[in-house]
């Protein structure tokens, strides 16, 4: 092949640029999570544009745990309809309270119509990286779809606590009721809770399970047992990454 002039080469390169151009890898669109959750989630983080469902007895705790890493790393967090959220627990977990906003959920009390609720949720999705909402049975399928499309185009992460209703979750994180340690018969104090957490959903080929200390003795989150992937007998993080591609 004969050599081109630099100009011709430059032109050919310019033509090629769109084809080979900016490939956006899934991991470039990740928000960080705390180390204990990295192996549980695909690509080791929260992928922007995803909708997560958090269910089970400890749904609120696990929802907060999932967004903690990103909140601490600089993302803003909006919480809708969780007025009983324990702020001291949130601070101990690592959530940045200076970037936390809570919106009273007037939808479930009937004060806010479905359209107004959707406008409110859309405004939050526009401005916040992380939006945690309590499930709202009044939301119609069309509204949920539009909101999820907005989450994707904005690159936010939506976390639905409780029954997701019409929202289609990319990942479902289920936290069973855990067992508390530290309390005796009239002695001691609550020190930590061991919690079984499983992650499944359409973005994950096989269910992943782990045991977590949530909260751990200092109120944070730590791994109690390494992640197990359904169908695997021997489990380690590296094998898991190779097999899931």
């Amino acid at each position, binding site marked *: 092949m004969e050599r081109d002039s630099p100009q011709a080469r430059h032109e050919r390169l310019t033509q090629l640029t769109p084809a080979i151009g900016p490939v956006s890898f899934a991991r470039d669109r990740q928000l960080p999570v705390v180390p204990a959750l990295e192996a549980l989630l695909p690509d080791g983080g929260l992928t922007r544009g995803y909708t997560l469902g958090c269910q089970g007895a400890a749904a609120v705790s696990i929802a907060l745990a999932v967004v903690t890493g990103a909140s601490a790393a600089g993302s803003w967090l909006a919480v809708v309809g969780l007025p*009983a959220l324990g*702020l001291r627990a949130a601070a101990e977990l690592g959530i940045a309270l200076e970037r936390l906003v809570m919106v009273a959920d007037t939808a479930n009390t009937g004060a806010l119509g479905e359209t107004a609720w959707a406008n409110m949720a859309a405004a939050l999705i526009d401005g916040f990286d992380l939006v945690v909402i309590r499930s709202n049975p009044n939301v119609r399928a069309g509204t949920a779809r539009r909101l999820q499309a907005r989450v994707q185009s904005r690159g936010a992460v939506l976390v639905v606590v409780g029954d997701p209703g019409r929202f289609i979750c990319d990942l479902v994180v289920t936290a069973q009721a855990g067992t508390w340690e530290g309390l005796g018969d009239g002695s*001691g104090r609550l020190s930590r809770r061991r919690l079984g957490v499983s992650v499944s959903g359409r973005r994950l080929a096989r269910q992943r399970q782990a045991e977590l200390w949530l909260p751990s003795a200092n109120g944070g989150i730590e791994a109690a047992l390494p992640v197990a992937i359904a169908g695997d007998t021997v489990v380690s993080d590296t094998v898991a990454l190779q097999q899931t591609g």
Partner: protein
Amino acid sequence: MGSHQPASQTTPSTVPRLVVVWCPDWSVVAAGASPLEPAAVLHANRVIARTPAAAAAGVRQGHRRREAQRICPTLRIIDHDPARDGREFEAAVRSVAQMVPRLESTEPGSLTFLARGPSRYFGGEHEMAVRVTQLVRDAAPRACVGIGIADGRFTAGVAARHSAEQSAPAPIVIDSGPAATRAYLAQLPVSTLREVGGIAADAVDLLRRLGLHRLGDLAALPAPDVLARFGPVGAFAHRIASGGDDRPPGTATPPPDLLVSLTFDDPVHMLDPLVFATKQLAQQLHGLLAADGRVCTRLAVLAETEHSERSEHLWYRPNGLSVAAIVERVRWQLDGWIQQPGGLSSGVVLLRLTPDEVCSDDGNQLGFWGGRSEADEWAARAVARVAGLIGEQQVFVPARRGGRQPSDAYSWVSVDQADVTEPTERLAVADMPWPGQLPAPSPATVMPEAVPAEVFDAAGRVVRVNGRGALSADPAAVSVQGRSAEAITGWAGPWPIDERWWDTQQHRRMARFQFTTERGSALLAVVEHQQWWVTAVYS
């Protein structure tokens, strides 16, 4: 021009001679409040501007709403509206622009321009100042106008504020040259650095605690020592305190071809489409500069109509103009221009943004506006929008209170009471611990209102706690809010609290317990006057 000092001075000779026009309390003037009526404009629950009548009653900037109303019960509270401030100030800008080219604004209520040309034209700096005062008064008869002329933005700004504070405002002209500038600044308190220079309050406080009460004290120190001890912020404070160059480090003039513009085929008569187009332009410009790691600190905004009516204005922001800041300023400028008396004869056909001064965007936020990031601005706007949709009383941010109970440690305050992106004050860590507070982990669910409960012993009798903290029997089951009883699998307590024993009204005496139940839940309960309550759940 004044006499120049020998070159031994460290101050560069390039400090420009500037005129600063300062209208204090512009927000109340823009709101149309009469000077005789006590009124104040509040932002984030703090007074930011007040009328002379309110000032005479003792209302000051920074007072909280209640404090201001206590001092002056007849005070009329006006909501903060930056768009109104900007729009109203545009009339004053237009008036001065008849005589002076290249006007520059930092915020509504302040104007800056180079002294050299206009002072020659009017035959002296003092004559020019008198003329400019008249021009501003023509446009805004109620405004108090202070004018300062000095070397550098900081010194001129200080002089303008002093000028406005006089009982009969008259222009203050500081002689040119570093010696005169230093002599003028030397006796001023270091708090001037915060009020005019935009230095963070804690840095200024540190200077004061170290015994540097006046700017002269700071300027007398050797510059390298100040840099070593206080870092770049201290070096900047030292530079402006000694009358040096007060532009942010790394400031440069961008290449002349760097500009973004938009031509409209159909003339635009409305403000909103122009602001929308500006957003696009601002993002484009911001992207161009950000690719070089730079940010625009001074921006020329030009709009032109079909009949060649022009509005050209410079906007300055020491820590860089973000996209949102550019859009906001263009809105101020164009709103006032389009709505001027008589209106425009035709629609706008050209919009152009030209960076006039750029500086390296090293994240060095001087904090003139609190140093907010892009994400903060997005969030603040989303909060404003949601508050507009469902009401400000429905949107909350956390605030620290301190206390022994989980419900006392933090509380939610609605956003009309607090500033969303200024968390320092509301989340300030109490410097004293709360003895008697339960250690971590804390309950993830704190009941807004404590829920009544009953705790039974093995025989089914209600467990009682006496004044010495002794239980009538070990707790065996708990029933929350009348639901069926759950067996208690583990418990601890009582941890007594005796709060406010000095106050007969608010005295509380209670004992706390932790329970785990057979269903796996963990509760924090208190007993007070033999009544059990569940105050929080470790969910």
